């Protein structure tokens, strides 16, 4: 039976095959005049071979005992997806809303998203984090932040 532990190797096997084909198309060159695809091809072949070796554990039934249970058992998906969603939203809204507003909203969200925190604690923590990060990165290290549509 295929254990979930081995499933990752299927992914890497597909990646290896894709890279090997693309590297071949890039031009492998000759051994005396290596082309730009050679290193990719070599690494991809290694990846394919060892993915297959790892996958062969499916047929021999070998899998570490502690990996037999579901890898995702007990995972709090809601938390994970909320945080990842917030990170992606931050990246896409950063230039539009500007550093100050976008960072403040992200911080309030993160302080409250994973474990309930009082509103005033979340807002105060977010404000102080914002001030410190703005001071360190913008005023001290001169990192230019976008001001966004609101102008700040």
């Amino acid at each position, binding site marked *: 039976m295929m254990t979930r532990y081995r499933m990752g190797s299927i992914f890497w096997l597909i990646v290896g095959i894709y890279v090997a084909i693309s590297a071949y198309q890039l031009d492998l060159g*000759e051994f005396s005049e290596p082309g730009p695809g050679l290193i990719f091809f070599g690494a991809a072949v290694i990846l394919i071979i060892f993915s297959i*070796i790892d996958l062969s554990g499916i047929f021999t039934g070998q899998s570490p005992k502690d990996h037999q249970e579901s890898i995702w058992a007990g995972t709090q998906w809601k938390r994970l997806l909320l945080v990842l969603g917030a990170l992606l939203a*931050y*990246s896409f809204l950063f230039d539009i809303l500007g550093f100050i507003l976008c960072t403040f909203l992200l*911080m309030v969200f993160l302080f409250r998203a*994973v474990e309930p*925190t009082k509103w005033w604690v979340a807002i105060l923590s977010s404000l102080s984090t914002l001030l410190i990060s703005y001071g360190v990165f913008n005023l001290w290290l001169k990192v230019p932040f976008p001001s966004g549509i609101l102008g700040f």
Partner: protein
Amino acid sequence: MDILHNLFLGFSAIFDLNILLYCFIGVFIGTLVGVLPGIGPVGAMSLLLPSTYKISPLAAVVMLAGIYYGSQYGGSTTSILVNIPGEASSVVTCLDGYQMARQGRAGPALGISAFGSFIAGTLGLVGLMMVAPPLASMALRFGPPEYFSLMCLGLTLLIYLASESSIRAIMMAAVGVILGCIGQDPETGSSRFVFGIYDLLDGIGLAPFIMGLFGISEVLLNIEKSLERRSIFQAEIKGLLPNWKDWKDSIKPIIRGSVLGFFLGVLPGGGAVISSFSSYAIEKKFSKHPEKFGKGAIEGVAGPESANNAAAEGAFVPLLTLGIPPNVVMALLLGALMIHGITPGPLLISRNPEIFWGIIASMYIGNATLLILNLPLIGLWVQVLKVPYKILFPLIILFCLIGAYSINNSIFDDIVMILFGVLGFVMRKYKYEGAPMVLAFVLGPMLEYSLRQSLRISNGSFSIFFTRPISAGAMILTVVMFISCVAPTLRRKREGIPKEETQ
């Protein structure tokens, strides 16, 4: 006399208020991340890497190096007081350190750990000063085949020492090479695996890659389960100065740990973690009372804590003399130096003596600062331990986001970091290690360059790697180690098939 003269040069380079400040910031942050179990030195260094772009190269490396060896000091505090290692290299300190704390001897445990670290750090520096210059002059004779073989050896050693599956470590090293070489081909100019994305022409950035793989993925791993509250050792910590008997029991383990740690640190792929475990095993063997180990033996704290600090300094030898990073942390330092246009290698000592000797001098200052930070200020670190993770993780995320953005003032780096954060998280769930991937990522372009050059020199013959003595030695070692880590797995699989069939 030359060494003293050069050391003087190093001290004169760092006796600048700015550099001393960065040294202090480095060791302070190092102790902090060592104390905090949620973030390690690699995460912290990658987080701060972008902020070093605007300071001098010496200040940048002094600060980043400070984070590394500072974290080795701080890691022991959580091991002793909470029984949770702040760093992987402090895992073994939990065994006796926490037991000492339970017996009311938290003070001497913390004290000997700090003093041992200081002595080992100083001895490690002496070793670095002695070994690095002759090795660098020898390395001047190295050509592309030697570099290629040595890098293969470094990667194989890391695979050999992988804590999870060696097969998977090899896979991750291959992925690291692929990712590291993405971008424009330096020789032909053709774009490779950029998928029409202009930002990828220069390759994937080191900082967003590592921040994602170690910083963001660590946060995701921590928040996916209920956030546990740590129970901290409550009794008052007093008597930090070890007594005469403690010193008598500890001095030999400290010296043995320092020598062992330094040499294990020099080896590519070796490092603080292995040296601390090896030191513990050796001390148990040398001890007249091995039964006391695990029940609060001070030797079990002194030896490993000294070893991991000496290893942290030994690791600078291959980086500064050969330009080959032996571990992920050194790979980050290599990246930091190269961003400033300084190429570590055999010519570093002659071309940039102020950088080489400045780093060494800064470690003396850093080690002394760490002693002050870790003994009188222990109360502060205990307070830091009480900061709940729900407050900590938004700060880590924000610093990662701003850090990645500040490299090119581009949100693209943030997106790359988030993607590698998710990849790192899934990799950890499926037990794929990130360290071989990162080392291969950094070594990838150098590997490619030296492979192509070597093949051109030999007109396409791979025998060039086996006909030059240093390259041949490294290659033979690589092949032997590669076989020894792959063969047992293959044998087990072969034996598994008939067993399966009979069932």
